[in-house]
Each structure stands twice: as structure tokens, then as C-alpha cells.
């Protein structure tokens, strides 16, 4: 189903928030063209690790990241790496749909604009259309690209955010509980979209819902108390986990 080449590779990642050791020696290979899910109880460090992958943790003053994270072999925490460029390559979608209060078009065009990815309006139009198509939103919005993005329904907004992230042609898409603010039907649509996106991107998704992880991911990583307890093929994690903590969590014996 998914090619097994590694896209990102985290080696011995540790994160401290001040004195709080939030993440302890995490080693994960994010595979190319694969949906990887991070599950685990609240506060176990899923989001923290996710935000390490595109250095969103840089914006938290107290956060300190140790270890190496490679994107296609290059250390993203190298001094010469500009986090801004990195984030264009490792896009992010957030828990609550957060379109800019601008037109749909402008929402999608923003990334290409600030990164100077297109040379003219025609190219930009093309990028916007392609991104919206990939996000399975084009047909719903093509007649009202000038309408404000905030006027869309929750699920559409989230897909717009995905389109926006896609527009900078990232290699990896990070999603932090992208459906937790959506109703079930919108959730299903976004899950469906994630399933489709996997043919083109690596997708990493944090979710509280084990059902969701089971539905959309090919690989699952289980975090517990800042440790990466188990990482493997989703089917195996859910039918026959190796670690008793994973088993306990999956079957609802620990939170």
C-alpha cells in the first residue's frame, strides 16, 4: 500500500519545557506516502512531538528540543535551517479550523505568496485551484472563491486549511487533532480526504480517537508519559500490540 521509504526520521528526541521532561528519547521513522497516527493519553507528548517536526515548538520560549530530526536526511534543527522555510515543507493543520478571515482564494494563495513560489497571477491561480482540488473542496467553492473562508461550514473550513497547507507543496502534512472540532459527518469527510492525500504526501496525525487512528492510518505510534511505547503497523497495533501498555490503552484499561 505505502512505499516504505523514510521521509522524516527522529532520533533520540527529547523535549523539556523548563524543567518538565515532556518527551523522552523518541525514535520514529515517518514513512513517505503513509498516514502515521500518534495516539496516547492526554498530556503524553503527542502534540509536543508533532510540533517538533516543523519546529513550531520554537515559538514556545520554555521549550528545549534535544536529539536529531532529519527531513530527507537533513537535520531540521541545524543552525542554518530557517524554520520559516522548513514550515513550508512541513505543513501543519490545527485542531480548530482556522481559516484567515479573508477570501477563500486569498487563504490558499497566502503561502505561495509569502514564499514567492509563483511568478505571476496565472501561476498562482493554478496553484490555488490544484490545492483546492487536492483538498476535495474545489467543486464546493469554485463559484465563490471571493467569499470569505470563515463563511464555510466547519468541515469545509478544515479542508480549506488543508488546501492552504498543501498550497506551499509541502512534503509532510502534520495534523493535530484535525477533526476534534468537527461533527461526525465533517469528520468523515476529512478522514476520507486524509486517506486520499496519502497518495501524495506523508501525513502525520495526532488524534484522541483510537477509532480515527484505526480508520485512517497505516502506522500508529503510541505515546505514554512522554515515551514512545510502541510504533508499528496500525492493524498490528490494534489487533495484537506488543507492549502491554499499548494493549491496556487500546482496550480502555488505562486512559
Amino acid at each position: 500500500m505505502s512505499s516504505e521509504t523514510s521521509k522524516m526520521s527522529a532520533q533520540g528526541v527529547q523535549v523539556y519545557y523548563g524543567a518538565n521532561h515532556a518527551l523522552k528519547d523518541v525514535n520514529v521513522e515517518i514513512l513517505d506516502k503513509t498516514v502515521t497516527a500518534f495516539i496516547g493519553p492526554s498530556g503524553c507528548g503527542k502534540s509536543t512531538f508533532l510540533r517538533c517536526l516543523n519546529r513550531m515548538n520554537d515559538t514556545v520560549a520554555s521549550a528545549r528540543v534535544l536529539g536529531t530530526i532529519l527531513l530527507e536526511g537533513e537535520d531540521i534543527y541545524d543552525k542554518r535551517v530557517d524554520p520559516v522555510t522548513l514550515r513550508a515543507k512541513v505543513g501543519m493543520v490545527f485542531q480548530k479550523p482556522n481559516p484567515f478571515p479573508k477570501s477563500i482564494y486569498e487563504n490558499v494563495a497566502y503561502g505561495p505568496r509569502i514564499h514567492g513560489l509563483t511568478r505571476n497571477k496565472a501561476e498562482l491561480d493554478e496553484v490555488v485551484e490544484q490545492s483546492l482540488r487536492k483538498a476535495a473542496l474545489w467543486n464546493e467553492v469554485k463559484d465563490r472563491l471571493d467569499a470569505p473562508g470563515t463563511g464555510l461550514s466547519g468541515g469545509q473550513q478544515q479542508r480549506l486549511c488543508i488546501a492552504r497547507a498543501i498550497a506551499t507543496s509541502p512534503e509532510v502534512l502534520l495534523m493535530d487533532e484535525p477533526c476534534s472540532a468537527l461533527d461526525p459527518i465533517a469528520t468523515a469527510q476529512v478522514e476520507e480526504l486524509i486517506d486520499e492525500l496519502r497518495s501524495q504526501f506523508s501525513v502525520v496525525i495526532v488524534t484522541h480517537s483510537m477509532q480515527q487512528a484505526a480508520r485512517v492510518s497505516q502506522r500508529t505510534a503510541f505515546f505514554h508519559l512522554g515515551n514512545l511505547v510502541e510504533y508499528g503497523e496500525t492493524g498490528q497495533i490494534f489487533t495484537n500490540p506488543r507492549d502491554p501498555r499499548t494493549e491496556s490503552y487500546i482496550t480502555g484499561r488505562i486512559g
Partner: protein
Amino acid sequence: MSLGLLSLIVLGLAVLGFLAGRQRALRLAQGDARRLHSLPSYYGWQVFLFTAVPALALMLGWAFLQPMLVDARVASHLTLAEGASLELMMNDVRRVAEGLTLLPAPSSDLATLKTQLSDAGVALGAELRPDVLTAAREYHSESASLRMILSGLVILVALAGLGLSLARINPEQRARNLVEHFVLVLLIGCALVAVATTFGIIASLVTESWHFFQLYPARDFLFSTEWNPKFGGGSSLGLWPLVWGTLYVSLISLAVAAPLGLLAAIYLSEYAGPKTRATVKPLLEILAGIPSIVYGLFALITVGPLLRDYFAMPMGWGDSSSSVMTAGLVMGIMLIPYVSSLSDDIINAVPQAMRDGSYGLGATQSETIKRVVLPAALPGIVGAVLLAASRAIGETMIVVMGAGAAAKLSLNPFEAMTTVTVKIVSQLTGDTEFASPETLVAFALGLTLFCFTLALNVVALVIVRKYREQYE
């Protein structure tokens, strides 16, 4: 060259720099912006900032320093007459110098020059003295030459910034990061203005109070119960009558504002329908938007006489239209919206879930308010009342116009009393001479007032802040 023109030139250069920088970056990237580290306009902005900011900063600094430099040099030309102040003479010098720049052909004769000057709109109080004229001439030429030097320097700095930053442009240059750092420094500078203000307030209050206490014993100021300034000297400048008046007025105003404001806030946020709320709330807030001078006038011409004619005189409590009661009542009206608005916000900040919880248990609305909403909002409401108190203590115009000027320690609210702020105004308006204790006492009063309100504010702010965090 006037400062305005100079700044225009600098800005013009900066705009040119912007265009050139952008262009150069694009050219270096062979027209494909994607090869640049940053967007082309950042290269332009970088040149703009390096051209404009140092030059303008130099200009501003110079503008502040120049008068001091010139003053120092010119003062040597003046022979100071007995009793005359250097300040006043320097004022004359400046005026004359200014006049000289206006006159196309200033006469050398003193008398004609004076008429010439007065025709030009420079009215001189005293005779034009020769040494003043020399000083003015000196002043004039000094200023002119300094201004020339400044202009040259500023333009040079601007050009240097432009050239250097243009030369540094290359496609790998992190123009965006550079610009952003630059902007950050500007932002920090602006943030420091607020700090500087506090610093300025404290410094000016403390230094002048220091001067005052050298002239007048601090013990008398702090512990005497008599206030009786005499401009001839031998004043008694005791703080207590003023403090008493201030507190008395504030108490009365709070006694009016706190219950009315709170009840109004409760009604508006809990009972009133959206329509009532939408009309009444802004109406009440008008009360807060009305300047205190208006309340002052209201106290002076309406409330004062009213109270005197219908309460004080018939009851035999006094016959002054200025009274603590007048000022307190009017100030109370003014403070209603301060209490009600803040309380309203605070009551609204109590989550609806809290009310639902109470209704869900079968509580009536007033029970919900009294037992759930108000206790939850109490710290915030206390904070609101404290802030209103701070405002009452520092309020000036109402007491100046409504409370009277007599420093008294009395309990009768229909008597005129005075407050700290009233006395600050009365000691500092008119001809001020910064040498007598009667003037300088105002700074000591200011310091007292500042400390009072500071304490109240800090307590109130801490309470309000804590309260806000509760629901976040």
C-alpha cells in the same frame, strides 16, 4: 533647512532606496524572485530602514540637544540684572532671535528694531536691551550654523545607509530576518515610552518634592493639621485637611456610585432583554464619556445652588454652594458607569454555564445571582470599586469647581472643603516660580496623590487580573 524639509528629503531618499533595493535584488536573481532568500520587497525595506532610521534618529536627538547647546553658549553674553531670572531673559533672547529670522532687514537701532519686531508679531515685554540683542544675534547665528551642520550630517548619514545597504544585497542575504530584527528594535523602543513615562512622573515628583522638603520641614507637611499658604512666606502647609477633604468626597461619591452601579449592572446583565440592554447600557456609558469639566460645571451652576437652597440652608447646615456633598454627589454620578461597566463585564464573564447549572438545580434567578453569580464575580467587583475610588481621589475638575477651596477638617458634608487635587491646581496655576515652598508644595501633594492612587490601582489590578484568570 527646516526640520520638516529635512525629514522629507530623508524619506524621499529612503523611498528611492526601497525601489533601488528591490530592483537590485530582482536583477541579481535574474528576474526570478524564487531564487531570492526573501521576497524582493524585503530587500527594498531593508534599504529603506537603513536609510531613514539612523538619519531621523540623529535629527531628533540633535533637535533636543541643540537648544541646550545654544543656550549654554548664549547665556554667557547676558548680564543678569538684580532679581531678574535667567529663564525670563532667555525667553526674550529666543523671541528676539526668532524675530530676527523673520525680518528681511533687521535694523541695528534698538528702538526701530523693537517696532519692527512687534510688527512682525514678536511682542516684547520689557525694553530691548543691548546684551539681549547681542545674545539674540549670537543665538541666531549659532542656531543657523548648527542647523546647517545638522542638515549636512543627516543627509550624509542617510546616503551612507543607502549606499551600504544597497551594496550588501545578494540573493542569499536574509533580508527578511534583517528587516524583522530592525522592526523589533523599533517596537521595543516604543514599548519603552510607557516605562519612561512612569519614570518621568516619579523623577519629576521626587526631585521637586525634594526641593520642597529642603525649604519646608517634612514633619510639618506630614503631620500638621493646618493649611494656610501665604505667598509672603510663613505658610503652614499641613497635608491633613486636604487628605480629609479628598477622602470625604471620595467616600460620598462611592456611596452613591457603588450601589447604583452594581445594581444597574446586575439588572442589565441578568434581567434586561437585549433591546433594553442595547439602549440603556450606552446611555449609562455616556456618563463616563462626559468630561469631568462638564460635571464640574454641573456642580457649580446646578447641583451646588440646589443643595444649598433646598437642603443646607433650610436645615441650617451651611450656606455654601460649594460643598463636599455637591462634589461627592456629582462625582458619584460620574462614577456610576465606571462601576457598572466594569461590573457588567465581570458579571458577564461569569460563564453562562454557571447560571445554567444553578437553574438546572431549580434556583430562581435572584437566587442564582445572589448565590452564584455575585460571589463568583465579587473579587472583580471589588476591583472595579477600587478603581472607581482611585478615580475619585484623583479627580480634579469636579472638586475644583464643586468642593470649594477652604482647607478644613469638618464632618459637615454641606460645608466647603478642599482636596489635594484642588490645591495642586491652585498652587501651580498663575505665575509659577519654582523657588517658593508655596509652589513646590504642589509636587509634594502630587507625590502623595500618586502614591495613594498607585497603591489602590495596583491592588485593584491584581484583584481584577486574578479574577480574570479564574475562568481562563
